[in-house]
């Protein structure tokens, strides 16, 4: 057991996997000599050499395609795309090739590829560098999309992603790299496609993933302390496959849900979660499912505008109050019947 940052957990897991399996190699921009834009690959070029830690040109489509080819031929490439915004340049490779080769060619070749890439706005990086477009990949059959929120989950899911025979988009988040948590030494790979109830509660289910799972936990703790609310938190952990059973089971218990997402509202992850709840827990809902998401604008650069466009803790609390008001539980002095 060690307390480490999310960044360190990723670094150590990459290194351990490279030591464990020599087929594992890394590709990406600035990951070698510069040690990665976010220093996830620090020291790995020195340790494993340029054959296994490959600095690439600034050409996402090219190096993603190269990684797909390597994966088809038996290697286990882990591609770092500097931010998820740049993955759009490789969209055709990811969606039309990585996701489809196994199915289209009768299972002759699988694509055991991992694409690591961070999302996250709020760093004043402008509209083209601040998006959260994991939805584009979660939409595509043939891909798996995982979105861990803690260092331990990052380790367990990165192990699982590298060892998985299908292409996995591994979503990181700029705001999570410096967060810390316990990571057990002998942590096994996590099954992909499982959500987790990270906090049990009875009043309402608060659902998030990646950064928003943190926001959810933090708001739940805050409202427990200040208002005596008993909020259940579900960390999705995997966007595809989506663990519908865990979501439904939670809402069947609490009868109300608020979904947090770091993307735009319309057609977003939250819409899929809300539809899941409607399908699986319709007769248990006492209020409509509410979603908290970004304002539907290209994210502004100016700090006050950027802050205003991103979902805040207050937005989350307001959505919780609206939902609890709708079920007749005023948010002060909440009682149980």
């Amino acid at each position: 057991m060690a307390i480490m940052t999310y960044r360190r957990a990723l670094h150590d897991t990459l290194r351990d996997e490279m030591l464990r399996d020599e087929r594992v190699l890394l590709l990406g921009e600035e990951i070698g000599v510069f040690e990665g834009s976010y220093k996830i690959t620090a020291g790995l070029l020195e340790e494993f050499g340029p054959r296994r830690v490959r600095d690439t040109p600034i050409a996402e489509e090219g190096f993603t395609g190269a990684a797909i080819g390597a994966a088809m031929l038996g290697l286990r490439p882990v591609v770092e795309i500097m931010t998820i915004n740049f993955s759009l340049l490789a969209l055709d490779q990811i969606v039309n090739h990585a996701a489809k080769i196994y199915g289209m060619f009768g299972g002759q070749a699988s694509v055991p590829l991992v694409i690591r890439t961070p999302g996250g706005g709020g760093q004043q990086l402008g509209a083209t560098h601040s998006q959260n477009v994991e939805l584009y990949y979660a939409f595509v059959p043939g891909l798996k999309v995982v979105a861990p929120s803690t260092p331990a989950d990052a380790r367990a899911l990165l192990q699982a992603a590298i060892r998985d025979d299908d292409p996995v988009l591994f979503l990181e988040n700029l705001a999570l790299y410096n967060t810390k948590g316990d990571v057990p030494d002998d942590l096994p790979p996590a099954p992909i496609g499982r959500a987790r109830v990270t906090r049990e509660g009875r009043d309402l289910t608060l659902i998030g993933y990646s950064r928003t799972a943190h926001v959810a936990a933090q708001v739940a703790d805050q409202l427990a302390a200040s208002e005596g609310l008993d909020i259940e938190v579900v960390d999705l952990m995997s966007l595809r496959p989506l663990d519908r059973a865990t979501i439904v089971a939670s809402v069947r218990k609490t009868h109300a849900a608020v979904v947090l997402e770091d993307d735009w509202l319309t057609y977003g992850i939250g819409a899929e979660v809300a539809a899941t709840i409607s399908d699986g827990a319709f007769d248990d809902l006492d209020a409509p499912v509410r979603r908290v998401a970004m304002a539907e604008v290209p994210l502004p650069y100016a700090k006050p505008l950027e802050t205003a466009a991103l979902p805040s803790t207050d937005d989350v609390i307001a959505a919780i109050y609206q939902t609890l008001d709708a079920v007749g539980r005023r948010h002060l002095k909440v009682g149980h019947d």
Partner: protein
Amino acid sequence: MIEITMPRLSDTMEEGTIATWHKHPGDHVRVGDILVEIETDKAVMEYEAYDNGVLSEILVSEGQTVPIGAPIALLDGTGASHQASVPAPSGAVASSAGPAPAETPLAAPPPPPPPPTLEPSTAADRLVASPLVRRLAREQHLDLRDVRGTGPGGRIVRRDLTEMLESRSQIHEAFTELRGPAVVVTDEKRGSEAVPVTSTRRVIARRMSESARTVPHFYATAVADAGPLVRMRRELNAQLAAVSRPKVSVNDLVVKACALALREHPGVNSSYVDDTSTTMLVHRRINIGVAVASQHGLVVPVITDADQRTVTDIGAETHRLMARAEERRLTVEDMSGGTFTISNLGMFGVEQFTAIINPPEAAILAVGATTAEPVVVDGTVDTGYRLRYTLSSDHRVIDGALAAQFLRTLTTFLENPWTLVA
């Protein structure tokens, strides 16, 4: 034609017996009219009409038992029913399981339509209720039209049903005399008569069999010198009578003594959960069930927080509960949440006996009569009073020593009865 089916009136109900039909074929029925009284495993409950119309046929006569969902009557819901307002091909309503009544609905001449009593349903009239509320209404046969919704836009939410669900659970424990099928003489040599098993009797049979079969009982009997208790009660009642206050019974004092003894031995005030559970339950509140042989059957109303009540309060509460039992008006609330039971057959002159534990409680005290008998005091025989009582314990959570310690504490309280009122 609307098919009226046997409703589910309690969580544990699987079948129901028609006790009394309040409407008869040809009668006009309005929403809210009491159609029929149904005897469930717990109670006799009135069942109201949810549609307007004319009762055209009774399919299950009084005294007969059918499973939930089986058709019990047919209602010609011409006109204003809210169900009938959904355009449906005729006969489509009769889709639930169970034997479909033969041709009758088709063959019967259409009875005259009843005067419409409701406004025709329009989209604006649609009840706004959350899906959870709608499910509860379906399952519990609640009529939501009188419920005031407090959610956004007047939506009915779960909280708005709290009162209704509570009043629903007011069950009329025990049973009515069934006008059951004619008595059949089944065994001439023994002169046997088949007497219908009431639902109350069936519940007693099931619960007691289960308890005797699954709970490892052991029994420990103790005896108290009841002289001080008899004298104290005589003195106390004389003083109470002088100020026109109700008297205190031996049972009231035993309830109080048990409650105080349970407080000293919380292990007795506990429940075994099941073999797979890693925990057992120790109850913080002391709620004592008092077995009552009402004229309608055995019931066990519960005196909550008996340890915190005065003896006169326990007496008053016992009288209130016994009166409700006689009226068959005990609620689920009145009968649930017990942590220990007392069964007293002393008034019948029974000296001592053993009782079967009332699960999930862990113990029951069987109390005998206070008897005058020769006792040896300081080597000489004298007349004394003795009270005998037997604790039945669930050995899964209570060991012999704990039972013995509890009885010793109880005996101490009973032999020093002023401590009960101090």
